[in-house]
């Protein structure tokens, strides 16, 4: 085959609707045969099953209300610390996923006949046999490094165990690169421990909360929203730096419409005021931090006047925020935010945020930065010795985490290795790769086309399933057990159970069974417990509980931990100095800036606007895109492009009209998007919610609704220190409908 010609051995296949759920009558027998076991069984066969949500990473506790074998309502679990009886729309909307008529109903195998590629319905045994053979064959021929997994979702632990049996540990969660990674690693470098979910801020006790471009309220992170609300009721002031007047900005004492991509300069300006006006906590800085002199040198020139020129925020406003922040400290904080990677320098931006926190001495103080604890779950010893891994971490980025076994490489490295041929086989669990912001749509598709074998495990016929050789239909989180969840840290450490509210519909199976079937097909037995229930029970027995006990409330909760430090208490941090590192010794040793420094980012060309993104409170990007129940409200049906009223006038755009967007590289949005003319955004940026504009016609609800933000990403900046992906240096203009 000549180079460049027909590089794809795999074309996108539209999954025929006869393989999807809509065409299959639900077996009533299956529903009746299922015993819901323990849970509060009410009158007339109704019951409440406590579990946890999968509609976003927060994993709130839910109460699934079941009647006549159907989940008719989902509410927040009263017992779960992250929900406390409350729930966001997405949690309620679990029924929209469970009863989605587009669900994958059968295993599918790609076949070619007369030069045409198509899927055929397969039995589980056929599909599992093929997957097991292909994956093992690649491992035997090229070594375990030729296999990789991209994953998103809590069911992945079983596939990790499966792969580890044959020495594969090249796993990436794109969410790390796109969302939480920079905050995690910046916290490690500054405080010596990784940041968590919920983020370690004592919001409900805070008097002054500063946010940079994070959209709580539109990000419905249940517990965080609850705590911010409590803070507001108690009189806390909110400050929001954001080019857009977000919902949170609407609650702010000060909304500062900062010029995009200049945040680090603003943070340096705030540091300058805190230090030059002697507003910082000298005692804390002297006792518990290192690198103050180096920090001051780096911000000495960053006067409010200079920062004002860069950020487009008046110098007096910068002074006001710094002074008020210091006045309310230590019950004040600057939040690290979520979806932190914007311009490829997020590690340094979050470091700057942590430095702003350290300067006012809010560490482990009421209303400041705190370290929530996790439930100490003991892991049972493995049944078998695993084959030696090639290496534990595959990422080439020096500050990629070394202690996250489910995330050993950046997702874009996997995509690049698949394109270069180093990776031959991909297992994609719950990631709709073409619409995931990793490197944009084209690279994702190229990677899947180049790989020798791709298996997708998914619930819906999302775009990614069209590029797989085998599609394995997983049942939803409401139909299965997963591993215990002690991954969330909070005031009251807890471990939560995911348990089925109803049996799997159609011919779908839980991930725990799928992974076990593949492993056993390899001739490896005993890697999984005889049943998922027995495995969970064994783990719970190690902490003095049992599956039967946790099933009742869906969670085991420890007493509240003491979050605050005592006067004179040593911090004993796990940083090289043992102190809070204003200047990071590790970054310096790695050849990076020890203290954060503002660098200029590209500006939009004339007539183009920086494309910013976010979310709607009732949607989680792709995961809820096809959810008819959630999509039913007018505000949820499509995304809009927010355009400043002056810019709209310049381009003769009317509120409500549809336009195509074109980016700086000439990429034109496949579908048109509705214009929202508003004062709520600066003139140099536009905003659109991610997760719309789906191309898969089999997502019958999501198809062609709004425009895809991901499609318009053709430029990315990788953080050279920790490997996260920034994509906000993409600029768009408008093409009016003819």
């Amino acid at each position, binding site marked *: 085959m000549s180079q460049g010609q027909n590089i794809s051995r795999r074309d996108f296949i539209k999954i025929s609707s006869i393989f999807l759920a809509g065409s299959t009558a639900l077996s009533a027998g299956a529903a009746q045969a299922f015993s819901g076991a323990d849970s509060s069984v009410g009158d007339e066969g109704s019951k409440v099953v406590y579990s946890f949500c999968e509609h976003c990473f927060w994993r709130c506790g839910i109460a699934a209300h079941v009647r006549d074998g159907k989940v*008719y*309502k*989902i*509410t*927040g679990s009263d017992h779960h610390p992250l929900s406390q*009886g*409350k*729930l*966001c*729309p997405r949690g*309620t*909307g679990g*029924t929209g996923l469970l009863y989605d008529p587009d669900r994958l109903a059968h295993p599918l195998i790609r076949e070619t006949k007369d030069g045409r590629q198509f899927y055929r319905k397969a039995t589980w045994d056929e599909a599992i046999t093929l997957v097991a053979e292909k994956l093992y064959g690649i491992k035997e021929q090229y070594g375990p490094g030729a296999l990789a997994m991209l994953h998103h979702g809590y069911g992945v632990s079983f596939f990790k165990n499966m792969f580890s049996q044959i020495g594969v540990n090249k796993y990436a969660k794109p969410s790390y690169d796109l969302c939480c990674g920079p905050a995690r690693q910046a916290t490690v470098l500054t405080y010596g421990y990784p940041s968590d979910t919920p983020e370690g801020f004592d919001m409900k006790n805070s008097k002054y909360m500063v946010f940079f471009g994070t959209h*709580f*309220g*539109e990000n*419905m992170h*249940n517990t965080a*929203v*609850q705590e*911010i*609300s*409590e803070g*507001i*009721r108690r*009189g*806390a*002031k*909110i400050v929001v730096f954001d080019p857009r*007047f977000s*919902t*949170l*900005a*609407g*609650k702010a*004492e000060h*909304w500062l*419409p900062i010029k995009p991509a200049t945040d680090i300069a603003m943070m340096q300006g705030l540091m300058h005021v805190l230090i030059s006006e002697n507003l910082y906590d000298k005692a804390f800085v002297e006792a518990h931090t290192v690198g103050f002199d180096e920090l001051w040198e780096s911000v000495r020139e960053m006067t409010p006047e200079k920062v004002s020129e860069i950020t487009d925020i008046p110098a007096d406003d910068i002074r006001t925020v710094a002074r008020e922040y210091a006045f309310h400290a230590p019950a004040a904080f600057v939040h690290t935010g979520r979806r932190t990677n914007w311009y490829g320098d997020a590690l340094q931006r979050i470091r700057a945020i942590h430095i702003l926190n350290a300067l006012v001495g809010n560490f482990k103080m009421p209303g400041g930065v705190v370290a929530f604890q996790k439930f100490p779950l003991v892991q049972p010893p493995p049944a078998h010795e695993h084959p030696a891994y090639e290496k534990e971490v595959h990422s080439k980025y020096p500050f990629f985490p070394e202690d996250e076994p489910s995330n050993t490489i950046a997702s874009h490295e996997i995509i690049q290795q698949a394109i270069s041929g180093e990776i031959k086989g991909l297992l994609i669990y719950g990631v709709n790769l073409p619409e995931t912001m990793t490197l944009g749509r084209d690279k994702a598709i190229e990677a899947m086309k180049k790989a020798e074998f791709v298996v997708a495990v998914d619930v819906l016929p999302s775009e990614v399933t069209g590029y797989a050789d085998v599609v394995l239909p997983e049942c939803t989180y409401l139909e299965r057990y997963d591993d215990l969840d002690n991954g969330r840290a909070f005031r009251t450490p807890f471990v939560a159970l995911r348990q089925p509210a109803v049996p799997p519909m159609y011919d779908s199976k839980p991930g725990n069974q799928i992974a076990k079937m593949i492993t056993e097909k390899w001739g490896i037995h005993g890697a999984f417990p005889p049943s998922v229930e027995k495995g969970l029970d064994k783990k719970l027995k190690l902490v003095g509980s049992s599956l039967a006990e946790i099933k009742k409330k869906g969670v085991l909760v420890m007493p509240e931990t003491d979050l605050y430090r005592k006067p004179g208490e040593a911090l004993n941090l796990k940083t090289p100095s043992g102190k809070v590192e204003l200047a990071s010794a590790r970054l310096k040793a790695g050849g990076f800036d020890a203290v954060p420094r503002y660098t200029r980012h590209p500006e939009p060309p004339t007539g183009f606007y920086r494309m910013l993104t976010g979310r709607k*409170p*009732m949607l989680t990007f792709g995961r809820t895109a096809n959810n*008819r*129940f*959630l999509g*039913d*409200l007018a*505000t*949820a049906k499509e995304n809009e492009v927010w355009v400043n009223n002056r810019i709209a006038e310049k381009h003769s755009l009317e509120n409500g009209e549809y336009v195509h967007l074109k980016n700086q590289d000439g990429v034109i949005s496949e579908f048109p998007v509705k214009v929202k003319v*508003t*004062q*709520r955004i600066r003139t140099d940026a536009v905003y659109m919610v991610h997760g719309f504009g789906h191309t898969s016609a089999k997502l019958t609800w999501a198809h062609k609704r709004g425009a895809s933000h991901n499609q318009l990403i053709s430029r990315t900046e990788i953080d050279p220190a920790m490997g996260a992906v920034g994509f906000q240096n993409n600029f768009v203009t408008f093409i009016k409908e003819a």
Partner: protein
Amino acid sequence: MVIDTRVCVGCSACVYACKQENSVPEGYCRDWVVQESGGEYPKLTMENRSERCQHCENAPCVTYCPTRASHYAEDGTVQINRSLCTGCKACMAACPYDARYVHPEGYVDKCSLCKHRIEQGLETACVSICPTGSLNLVDFNNMDEKTKELLKGKIVYRQKEHAGTEPSLQWISASNKPGA
């Protein structure tokens, strides 16, 4: 109800919870969320609020209902007797709050203040799910200390008071300063 718009983020959890609780058909809702912004850039303001039937003490829907389907229940809420409702929409024309819709089965429907839940000693679906605690179920004839504290010193309003409907929903304005 007292609705604290200072904390409401307009997430619509109340709307979805109501739809599930009350089997509200696709395309309809009994409560809804309004996001209102004003001012001139960069001095913008915003208020988010969850709205629904105001269970007026002088309810035009009850006055104008020709069949007495719309009526005051013993607890003071406004309810609809479906078997009496002919779907004539006189109530919809009379309601200043646009709180009603015609159910596909032919009768007019609206917020019942989750009568079935209140009778069981539960809060309404919207109140019990609200992550921000914006929604507060209040008996104005018998206000508890918590509610008095919540309202104290705040700018509180009722909607379209000039219509003389005596609505039972009160709103804590988003324009209240922190610590008000």
